[in-house]
């Protein structure tokens, strides 16, 4: 049976049969690279783009993902929002020079007024200033708790899923125990003994109770990924565990972790609010969206603006992170390009 080139493959490539010797094909390189016809027409714009760029520098998943992200409006918008949040979290006085603790009870629950675009809350504090200043605590809790949970959960989950055995059994049973702890009750017990009025005890508590969720997801997707043939192929090549984990398993197992972590970020900010409401999170005079939301909720009918502005800020923050996570997840999947 004569060798027939599959459709869409240049004849030239298949014709290169009669070379003797081993991989010593250097002399053929020039003829190989010049005059190679363009890619097949059948695979559409992706193919054209790839073949146009080939022959240039090597591309990898990460460089391609970054190229993809830079053109993705969802990513650009969410990154812009997050950058803005980070800036006002670091320097709230840039856009809100007032003091969030300067309140005038006489103006309690008043609506917007000149110089006070968001109105006043139940204590007569300026809602605009408090919302801007509250970003620091909320963003810190959300981002730090999510990073901590994602790092701890995915590293432990990844190792447990990959290596299995006794440590996996032990860690998996440990997550069962953590799942059994009710969040609010656990927060009341653990945080009530903490006297420090900063976000760090809250972050620590969320990481402590949050990691099992990511652990389970990471472990599951690592177990699914490690049974794939390409992992076997890498093992057959003699790849080390770290190479297999970082190059083959992590990129293929990270998507569900990103999705769950970005959604969890919102719940962590809300959890900070819940704990603050119960009096064990941040306490006044700290400023956070959670404190303001819980403080405004009793008189939502009289002064809805006092609730809506911090709640809106919270919603936008959560949405920005979820969109960012989505964009990153999609960029890491070449099949979606």
């Amino acid at each position: 049976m004569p060798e027939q080139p599959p459709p869409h493959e240049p004849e030239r490539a298949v014709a290169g049969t009669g070379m003797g010797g081993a991989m010593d094909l250097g002399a053929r390189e020039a003829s190989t690279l010049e005059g190679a016809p363009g890619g097949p027409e059948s695979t559409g714009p992706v193919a054209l783009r790839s073949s146009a760029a080939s022959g240039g520098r090597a591309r990898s998943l990460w460089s391609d993902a970054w190229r993809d992200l830079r053109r993705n409006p969802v990513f650009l918008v969410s990154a812009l929002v997050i950058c803005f949040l980070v800036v006002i979290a670091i320097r709230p006085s840039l856009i809100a020079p007032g003091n969030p603790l300067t309140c005038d009870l006489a103006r309690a629950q008043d609506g917007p007024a000149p110089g006070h675009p968001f109105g006043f809350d139940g204590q007569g504090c300026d809602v605009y200033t408090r919302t801007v200043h509250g970003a620091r605590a909320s963003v810190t809790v959300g981002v730090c708790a999510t990073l901590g949970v994602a790092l701890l959960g995915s590293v432990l989950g990844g190792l447990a899923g990959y290596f299995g055995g006794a440590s996996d059994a032990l860690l998996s049973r440990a997550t069962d125990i953590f799942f059994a702890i009710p969040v609010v009750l656990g927060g009341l017990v653990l945080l009530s003994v903490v006297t420090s009025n900063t976000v760090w005890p809250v972050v620590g508590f969320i990481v402590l109770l949050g990691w099992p969720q990511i652990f389970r997801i990471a472990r599951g997707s690592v177990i699914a990924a490690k049974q794939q043939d390409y992992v076997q192929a890498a093992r057959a090549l003699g790849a080390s565990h770290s190479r297999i984990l970082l190059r083959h398993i992590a990129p293929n197992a990270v998507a569900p972790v990103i999705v769950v972590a970005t959604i969890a970020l919102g719940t962590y900010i809300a959890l900070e609010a819940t704990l603050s409401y119960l009096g064990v999170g941040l306490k006044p005079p700290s400023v956070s969206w959670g404190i303001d939301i819980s403080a405004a909720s009793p008189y939502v009918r009289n002064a809805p603006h006092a609730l809506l502005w911090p709640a809106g800020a919270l919603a936008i923050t959560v949405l920005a992170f979820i969109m960012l996570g989505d964009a990153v997840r999609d960029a890491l999947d070449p099949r979606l390009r």
Partner: protein
Amino acid sequence: MAEPSKLAKDDEPKDDATPNVSEVETVDVTTEEEAVAALDATVERGEPILQVRNLVKHFPLTQGILFKKQIGAVKAVDGVSFDLYQGETLGIVGESGCGKSTVAKLLMNLEQATAGEIFYKGQDITRLSGRALKAVRRNIQMVFQDPYTSLNPRMTVGDIIGEPFDIHPEVAPKGDRRRKVQELLDVVGLNPEYINRYPHQFSGGQRQRIGIARGLALNPEIIICDEPVSALDVSVQAQVINLMERLQDEFNLSYLFIAHDLSIVRHISDRVGVMYLGKIAEIGTDEQIYEHPTHPYTQALLSAVPVPDPDAREGRERIILTGDVPSPANPPSGCRFRTRCWKAQDKCAEEVPLLAIPERFKGTDSPAAHESACHFAEEKDVVHAA
């Protein structure tokens, strides 16, 4: 091919007694350096390069969640011995679940053998580790069955084919790798321009070519092909098979070709082994196996091969086996095939048949004189019967 060296005259025939295979010349090494150096030895064409002896793989069956206790074992591979000669293609056929793929994984050291030895150039690779094992991996590579799962979807073709060079940096200097990858793409009949593409942008046949290019990257001596074409369309199968034959000649490769498609195995193989339930039932040259099978299982398999000739098809005898393959966790005593064999007698349940040239054909020039693990081996021309 295989020289029948000596017959095992043990009083107690072991399950895995294998009188047919050649003598293993082991290499004595004490240090890792010596082991690595010994792997560079050249093997003449026609000499055994890989010698598998009494290979056993049992997967334990356990019960209990926290305190596991073993309640049995799936005997996936149960005493397999064969030689792979330099430059030849040894086909292994058998139905699903007979242990073919497990043999491949054992040869690649992807699974740890329960017992038995695999000698590569005289060294037992089941006992190697560290640098010596890595050196073996350079020389024995694998092509996987499913081209859709054997390529990492998140790596470019350049990264996939170039990964062997990252793991074995001594093979290609860093600046040279991209060129080498493009050469490999060319060798397997793909456009070298495709280097920056991802696997999903290719068809199944093209993906399998990428898998073959990855296997070739380290310039190995042996390629284990685990059903390399069974996931492909028939027309693409022919292309890939022809490519593999061409590469074998170009790079002087030895293939262990695992498949369940008898005609493809016949097309590519010099010798063929037939596996049933973790054991080799019959082994010989392709002519011996296909034209002069002596094991009833081989005969039954061959009688199921489609014949593209309506007249011949009408006339030939179909051997229809009854029942299912027994569970490899609880294989039948004696001959494993006896539960489905029309020739089975009491002896078959008591005595394990050795994989040896049947007495009646011994010393004759008959093509039926090849190793067959049957007490009642006899020729039966099932392919041409009319």
